[in-house]
């Protein structure tokens, strides 16, 4: 049943074109809601085996080359399906006011979502890569047509970075296919690749995927891309697309090439730690609210990479949980900055916002941003805390030094988050201007629903992280590099 997430979403994208414009956003909403509902229904079913990457569909596709249309599911992919569904619904809700070229907009949006579902479910390497690359071009159009600041530059940069990563991955996949003789991920994960091959293919493959996850020093597409994108675009980028890279790095690079992983994981842990601290430091100096959030995304994704590099159950499970958590929190932050603030004030400059007394004008936005910031900083009770603490426990076993450095980095995260929060909403001298709240269009119903959904999700997982961890952990334990 879970396979219908892909078909419904891609089908919805095509159907959009043949309906009157008034229906477009409703179709998009219905599609994304049903995608999430399917994910949730699977999540609740007691009879699904989340510990193993269980095949659900298998159809021969190009038999001569051993390619199958094969989908599979385990706890890790399900977690990511859920966050994809959630981010997709909210992206549609926060684009409710898109009127110009709405058909194209929702078409590209659904293509990104459908392609991402495909990546998370693929059990065939070729199929996975196909879906992975399928997401690239829609992103370009979403940003280049509908974006804001410097949109064509940001879109092109993001696309070229993605495609560069894609080219590396392409080479890695050819190497794996030629040596392993198959595309089937479960077959390949039994295959013993020579250690020489693993030594050079692993870094290519991991780095290629990690470009999309925003690994330092190839992260610079992320802030520019996020800033240039329309709100829904940033939400999808932060909520879903960056996870594609991290997920594929785990599912393909680490799981297929465990020896290569052992050889290279120290270097990648160093990259991850530098990324966390560096991006947080850069975020502290940004004037544009979206740039602050963009760099915070890079910093949070650094945690994911660090978790993956630890190579133990805690670290990797924490990384998957962090993918979920950052997907929700990142989407929420961009929703506030992009739609709730920017659409109404037409500025994202922190100094300009500081003079506006937004707290009075947009109380709901202020509330949402406080919650999102708290979650982003890692305040206990929100999903960010649960994920990051799990990663750090895992890291403590392998890289104790990294935990100290990252701990210091988390202070920076708190610093830039609080700075952004204060400058944008709470920087007004209360005695002087309390009377004059600027007139602004109130927060609309779809925005409220979307924001509440995301807040509930981060709170629920934060208060009871085991609801996801119980499904992630067995799947992680089944991975090859842990054995």
């Amino acid at each position: 049943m879970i396979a219908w997430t892909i078909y419904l979403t891609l089908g919805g994208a095509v159907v959009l074109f043949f309906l009157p414009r008034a229906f477009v956003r409703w179709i998009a909403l219905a599609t994304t809601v049903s995608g999430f509902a399917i994910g949730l229904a699977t999540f609740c079913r007691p009879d699904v085996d989340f510990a193993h990457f269980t095949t659900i569909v298998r159809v021969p596709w190009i038999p001569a080359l051993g390619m199958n249309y094969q989908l599979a599911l385990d706890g890790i992919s399900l977690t990511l399906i859920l966050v994809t569904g959630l981010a997709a619904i909210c992206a549609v809700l926060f684009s409710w006011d898109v009127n110009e070229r709405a058909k194209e907009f929702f078409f590209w949006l659904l293509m990104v979502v459908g392609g991402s579902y495909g990546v998370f479910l693929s059990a065939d390497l070729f199929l996975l890569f196909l879906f992975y690359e399928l997401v690239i071009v829609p992103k370009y159009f979403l940003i280049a047509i509908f974006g804001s600041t410097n949109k064509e530059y940001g879109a092109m940069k993001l696309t070229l970075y993605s495609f560069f990563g894609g080219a590396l991955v392409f080479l890695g996949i050819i190497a794996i296919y030629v040596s392993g003789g198959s595309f089937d991920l479960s077959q390949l994960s039994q295959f013993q690749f020579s250690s020489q091959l693993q030594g050079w293919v692993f870094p290519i493959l991991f780095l290629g995927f990690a470009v999309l996850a925003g690994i330092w020093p190839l992260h610079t597409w992320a802030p520019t891309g996020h800033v240039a994108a329309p709100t829904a675009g940033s939400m999808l980028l932060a909520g879903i697309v960056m996870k594609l890279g991290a997920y594929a790095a785990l599912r393909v690079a680490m799981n297929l090439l465990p020896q290569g992983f052992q050889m290279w994981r120290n270097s990648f842990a160093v990259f991850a730690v530098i990324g966390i601290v560096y991006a947080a430091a850069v975020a502290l100096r940004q004037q544009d609210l979206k740039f602050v959030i963009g760099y915070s995304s890079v910093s949070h994704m650094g945690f994911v990479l660090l978790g993956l590099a630890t190579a133990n159950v805690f670290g990797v499970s924490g990384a998957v949980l962090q993918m979920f958590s950052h997907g929700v929190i990142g989407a929420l932050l961009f929703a506030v900055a992009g739609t709730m603030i920017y659409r109404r004030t037409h500025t994202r400059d922190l100094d300009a916002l500081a003079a506006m007394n937004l707290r009075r004008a947009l109380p709901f936005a202020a509330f949402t941003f406080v919650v999102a910031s708290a979650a982003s900083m890692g305040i206990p009770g929100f999903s960010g805390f649960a994920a990051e603490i799990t990663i750090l426990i895992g890291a403590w076993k392998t890289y104790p030094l990294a935990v100290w450095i990252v701990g210091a980095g988390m202070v920076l995260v708190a610093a830039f988050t609080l700075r952004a929060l204060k400058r944008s909403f709470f920087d007004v001298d209360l005695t002087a201007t309390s009377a004059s709240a600027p007139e602004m269009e109130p927060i609309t119903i779809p925005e409220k629903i979307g924001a509440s959904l995301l807040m509930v999700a981060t709170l629920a997982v934060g208060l009871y992280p085991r609801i996801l961890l119980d499904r992630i952990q067995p799947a992680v334990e089944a991975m090859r590099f842990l054995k």
Partner: protein
Amino acid sequence: MSYLELLKLASPEAIVAVTALVVLAVGLTKSNPATICSFLTAAGLAIAAAAVLRLPAHANLFGGMLVISPLNALFKVICLALAFVTVPLSASEKSLRNPSEYLAMLLLATIGLMLLVGSEELLMIFIALELLGLSLYVMAAFDKTDVRSAEAGLKYFLFGSTASAFTLFGISLVYGMSGSTALASIAQKLSTGGVQPLLAAGIVMTLIGFAFKIAAAPFHLWAPDAYQGAPIPSAAFIASGSKVASFVVLGKIVLVGFGPVAGSSAWHAMMAGWSPVLAALAALSILLGNFVALAQTNVRRLLAYSAVAHGGYTLLGIVAGGREGFSATLFYTTIYAITLVGAFAVVGMVKRETGGDDLQNFAGLGSRSPLAAACMSIFMLSLAGLPPLAGFFGKFYLFSVAFRAGGNHGLLWLVIVALFGSFVSLYYYLIVLRAIFVDQPSESRHPSPVTRHFSDDGVVAVLATLVLLLGLLPQTLAERILASLP
């Protein structure tokens, strides 16, 4: 062998020749022959394709001068099909003032293609090359109102005739060394003795002629001007049919005829032969084509430089060698031809609407004519190698074959060059798409409403569907090609 039997085996070529004569005759008698001539041409090509399918599976006349094999039959059909889709393109091209002569030239060029594909003997191959070349020179220069067309024809002719001279000289040297012009017996003779200097000169000179035909750097200089200046259908045919046939025959010559003197282009084990020559041509074409394409502002020139780069990718399969390698090359060149005809058809539509084919003429195409815009994005993204389009699978097939070839992944360097090239190429394909979907047309140029030809839309849509289908179900074509190879 009686003449009747010969005529039977050469019936497809004969049908096309007769069609050419009929079309010419009709053009002389009628005052407005465009429609009827197009119809006759299309019918002749279709009948010829049917005749190809009715031939016996194997035959060999006059020591390889005319060979009938599954491979040759398949590619004769493909060449006929490419000529077939060129017909509606020329029907809507109003600048061609003598449509019957133009179509007759197209048919003669098609005979050249069929002979080229169907021959395994160097002299016959040379004659076919000349027939093809001469027809194409005329087709390139056919628009007598446009000085650019004359330039295209002249450049194509000067470069082409020089390249032919090289090829002929190379063939004579090879004949001197081996005492034969049939590919099979050349291979036998060459299997003893290794690469002597004279033979090396002969091989390199023979290859130059083909490097010119496939527009591989540094023999590509004619391509940008010919693609830009020639009438749209001529450019499309030069870029598609001529290229496919050249790759078929190039593959046959080097893999069959010169098989024993392949040498090696593996990184640490380079050995003299044709393989390092082609590998160097491939690498140079990929790098030069892609980098120069970045700077183009005219879509046809951009397509020309990208054609140089794609010629380079396609050579990878031949360099890798073997049945798989050749099959990958043939698959790639076929889908490339389909894609490029489609792209040229869209360029033709834009040119008729806006009067030019620069990038700025494409601005706003997305809102002006969504079908053409959607099809153009399919063509561009397939050329860039993005899934789920045919170009993606083609590249995957080529690169994986090249990766596997040679001991210890010796061709990895070439694969890396090709991957790097296709990374670079995405930029300029996206620039075209950006013009189509993002840029707004400037106020000054109001596209004049031109009567749209249904046939144009039809051709473009069919080709785009084909590119998409071959990407989703590539085995329909790939398996056929692989099975037809001995």
